[in-house]
């Protein structure tokens, strides 16, 4: 316990970095995925092709490679980002692609009659999406979102490749300093503890929305 308390300040520093990447990526990616999912389903042919290509690239290459591309690769093209900005751009682009596909699936699972009913009631296409299709699709997508949100939390440790001191890296430094693997155990427990409120909270929301069926 004493050893844990000794390491706690550096863990908290690492945890704050992890949480910032996690929350910022989560919020921006989710917000971006709302219009991109709309365009993926209802957009013109060219827009859909562009989005399919973007999603193909983001899902088809490792996130670590994308992080390296934005931080180490772009400077060769004369574009330089700070470590944090490069990491956030990579995370946001990657997770927007996944969230878009999840939402697209959610919209696709709805009865096509819902869209037709909205159309008959005079809703524009965008209003039908925002008011009728999206709320139902979001509810259907909660289990997939839980998965992605928890994966994102674990993926944040990849920023250590850019030299950022996030939670796992703080354990690595401590392990090297004290020549013991115990800090990794502590960090593993911290990740698990973080999972609990996230999955419980989202499951609670899913339960609250069970009337939508």
């Amino acid at each position, binding site marked *: 316990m004493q050893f844990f308390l000794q390491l706690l300040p550096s863990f908290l520093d690492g945890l704050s970095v992890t949480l910032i990447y996690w929350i910022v990526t989560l919020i921006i990616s989710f917000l971006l995925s709302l219009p991109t999912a709309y365009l993926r389903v209802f957009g013109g042919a060219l827009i859909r092709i562009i989005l399919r290509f973007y999603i193909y690239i983001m899902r088809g290459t490792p996130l670590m490679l994308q992080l390296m591309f934005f931080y180490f690769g772009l400077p060769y093209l004369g574009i330089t980002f700070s470590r944090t900005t490069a990491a956030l751009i990579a995370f946001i682009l990657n997770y927007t692609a996944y969230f878009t596909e999840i939402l697209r699936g959610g919209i696709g699972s709805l009865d096509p009659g819902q869209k037709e*009913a909205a159309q*008959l009631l005079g*809703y524009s296409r965008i209003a039908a999406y925002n008011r009728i299709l999206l*709320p139902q699709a979001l509810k259907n997508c909660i289990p997939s979102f839980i998965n992605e949100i928890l994966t994102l939390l674990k993926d944040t440790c990849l920023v250590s490749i850019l030299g950022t001191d996030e939670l796992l890296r703080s354990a690595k430094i401590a392990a090297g300093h004290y020549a013991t693997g115990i800090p990794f155990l502590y960090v593993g427990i911290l990740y698990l503890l973080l999972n609990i409120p996230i999955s419980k909270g989202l499951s609670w929301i899913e339960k609250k929305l069970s009337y939508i069926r």
Partner: protein
Amino acid sequence: MSILIENCCKTFRSVPVLKNVSLQIDDHEIVVLMGPSGCGKTTLIRCLCDLETPDSGRIMIHGKTLFDQQKTQDKALLKQIHQEVGLVFQNYQLFPHRTVLQNLCDAVLYQRLLSRDEAHKKALALLSQLQLLEKADVYPSELSGGQKQRVAIARACMLKPRILCFDEPTSALDQASIQQLFPILQRLRESMAVLIITHDQEFGKQIATRTILMKEINAVS
């Protein structure tokens, strides 16, 4: 005259479904359209509601052109015509995330046809007529099939259509709910034309002021 359909044709992947269909429906009529599965009944109703576009022919709703192969339609006019035609879907298509009252009021509020108070008042009056007043604040998942259908009728009536179409209204109802439907349809007839497509011959004969067999008007059938 409510509806005039002239020489309507519709083909899906080179399979003709409607071939030179012509039909006329007057105000205050209850027209029942019957015929075997796949004979084009639903396609015809979907063309009337502008959910499908015919390949050729002409559809007039109260003297306004909904579809004419010869002419391109003005969007504003089309929107106006859409409001004159209501549809009660076979599986009702209520919005499951909205309460009954919200299902009724949302569209008129979105289109700014009524104020919130007026919309609520009108919706509650309709629900009262359909004996659903106590269900105003529940979600569709808590309703029976018959109740869902009445909510769907009320929702369509909120937009004051002049023609209300029903797609297989008895297919998911028990006998008691079907009996409840008769007076509702008779009351609707007082203010609009009603077009029903059904397989249920007994129901069709009882409710119709005119029965049409699809094969009589569709060369494909």
